[in-house]
């Protein structure tokens, strides 16, 4: 009997890479193929994700890579110190499964995936150090787990209220500490010139995002919400100059599309504001179901785009310490993370987005296991009800198998919006 013992078997790292590649390509193909013509400028982003996640292309071999666990670490400071920020929020089910062996089963998939990713040691742009803001409990605790894998993890103190002067001062100090720590580690000095330059560069990147958001307000929305998530997720890890160039091209093309009234969705597709746990590539499960159900995401209130991009840093004094303070203020005040109490700001932001983008409804997704988003669901739902805004709350995770039940719920919601619209006319 034959037993052909000399067949080659993948190493665990090769297997993990293949699994991730399979996850990535499924989403990319869906974006390219299941909808109307995507903008040509999206090609850059599709290729970028394919290269990084299907072919493990490293982008920053020449730089100090500064891993960040959340949007609260100012990338302006990292760039000014010649580093590159790499946000470690992870969306892979493959990594979630690895992390499940290390964290409680009930933890949020984003945290499990981030931990699983770092545990695997199979990382193309491996961070040289990690800064972990003490926001939600799970991220905070994940920091020490990650330290166990041999990473240098520094906690960045984060307040749980943002309205008071105390917390403002607290976070300013915290960011000063972060900047001193990074400067000591990289052996670079934070110069006025460089910080100023990076603030204006990031400011410019934000303004590009802003232009894109403006275009999504019109009745013919030139781009899908899912494509937008790809653009903003790319900002997590891409080379900043290439990102800016590609986004400029996208803005230009979308302006053209807007003139020609090209609508990325159907004529009566309901317009959705998306909020909740951040969609991180390739976990676009809910956003894809939404747009596959003939709705279009016109704006979002999440940590992977609107919340990180929309407010620009306002500097009144161009001295290093003043600039750091302005950065700290911007990051804290503009953030609508549900770890904050009180968090009326988030509700206000969602309502504002619904109005400015003429949305028909809100879809609120929380990852199963994310207590803060789950807890905040109630107040958001009540507020929307008061405003007469339709809202759907969904809990989900990273597993690919729940598709059936979830899509039925989303479709029913989308259809109810269509019927409402028809009656209104």
């Amino acid at each position: 009997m034959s037993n052909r013992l000399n067949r080659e078997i993948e190493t665990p790292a090769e297997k993990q890479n293949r699994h991730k590649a399979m996850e990535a390509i499924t989403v990319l193909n869906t974006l390219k193929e299941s909808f109307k013509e995507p903008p040509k400028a999206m090609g850059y982003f599709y290729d970028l994700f394919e290269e990084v996640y299907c072919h493990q292309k490293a982008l920053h071999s020449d730089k100090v890579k500064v891993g960040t666990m959340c949007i609260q670490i100012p990338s302006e400071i990292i760039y000014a110190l010649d580093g590159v920020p790499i946000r470690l929020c992870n969306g892979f089910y493959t990594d979630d499964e690895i992390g499940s062996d290390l964290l409680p089963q009930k933890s949020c998939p984003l945290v499990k995936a981030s931990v699983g990713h770092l545990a695997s040691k199979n990382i193309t742009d491996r961070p040289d150090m990690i800064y972990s803001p003490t926001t939600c409990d799970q991220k905070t605790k994940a920091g020490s787990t990650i330290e166990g894998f041999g990473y240098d993890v520094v906690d960045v103190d984060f307040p749980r209220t943002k309205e008071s002067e105390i917390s403002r001062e607290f976070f300013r100090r915290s960011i000063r500490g972060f900047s001193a720590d990074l400067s000591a580690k990289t052996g670079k000095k934070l110069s006025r010139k460089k910080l100023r330059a990076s603030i204006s560069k990031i400011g410019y990147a934000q303004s590009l995002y802003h232009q894109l958001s403006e275009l999504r307000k019109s009745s013919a929305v030139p781009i899908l919400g899912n494509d937008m998530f790809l653009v903003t997720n790319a900002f997590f890890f891409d080379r900043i100059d290439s990102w800016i160039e590609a986004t400029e091209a996208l803005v230009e093309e979308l302006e053209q599309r807007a003139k020609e009234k090209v609508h990325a969705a159907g004529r009566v597709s309901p317009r959705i504001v998306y909020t909740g746990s951040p969609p991180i590539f390739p976990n676009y499960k809910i956003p894809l179901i939404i747009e596959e159900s003939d709705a279009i995401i016109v704006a979002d209130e999440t940590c992977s785009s609107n919340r990180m991009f929309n407010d620009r840093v306002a500097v009144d004094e161009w001295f290093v310490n003043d600039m750091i303070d302005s950065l700290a203020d911007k990051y804290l005040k503009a953030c609508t993370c549900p770890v904050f109490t009180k968090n009326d700001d988030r509700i206000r932001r969602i309502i504002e987005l619904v109005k400015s983008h003429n949305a028909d409804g809100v879809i609120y997704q929380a990852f199963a296991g994310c207590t803060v988003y789950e807890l905040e669901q109630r107040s958001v739902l009540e507020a929307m009800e008061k405003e007469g805004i339709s809202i759907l709350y969904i809990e989900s995770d990273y597993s690919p198998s729940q598709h059936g039940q979830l899509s039925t719920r989303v479709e029913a919601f989308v259809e109810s919006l269509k019927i409402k619209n028809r009656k209104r006319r």
Partner: protein
Amino acid sequence: MNYFAGIDIGSTAIKITIIDENRALVGQRISGSGSMFYKYAHQTLDDLLRELKIAKEEIVYTVATGYGRKLFKEADENISEITANAIGAVAAAREFGEIKTIINIGGQDSKAISLDDTGNVVNFAMNDRCAAGTGKFLDACAMNLEIGVEELGERHFHAIGTPLSINSTCAVFAESEIIGLLGNNHNVEDIVCGVHYSIAKRIVKLVKRVGIREGIYFDGGPALNGGLVNAIENELGKKIFIPEHPQITTSYGAAILGADSFDYQKMNG
């Protein structure tokens, strides 16, 4: 010479194995089970005996196994396919070493069996009642891709891009996924590879339920598909043993059990 027959009446095929007193394989035959199990089983046995030039009387003990085993009334004994599979696998893999885990993919189900050190079944798991990850599923995929099912194995190794996953656990939805991929002009090879990995992932989940213990044996018709074997090995991260005739392990096991029973009965009067 005394001979022993093992007859495995499965949902899609009838497998018959004949062994001699030394438990050596003398001959085997596979035919479709069609709608008339009973008639086909007899016909297949007759054909095989004629081919081997063995008289019916020389078959001194017959054991039936498989879904349709109860329909074969002439059998001296019948046993479940789980037990027969285990006995057959241990015997077939003798020169490979000890068998601890068996993966079996049949026409309409798949199972994982865990054995103890003496070759007894300690645990087993079967897929839920769905064709996903079975031989039927492979047939359906090949049909949608308009290639022969025997071509799947070779095509797997010619994938050039990332394997394209088929995420639906339901065979019907999986079919539409495949049609969708084809419609968007994806490579047949990349789809084939994705189909194999999707099945492999499901199989590994099943195996995990009984515990993955080294000494892994894979049988059933789909074990002839080298691409699927490759995918399962990669998903397990372990080598697996494929017997020369993976389709007949169960009937082989039934025949061995028959020989053992015969000897035992002779010794104990």
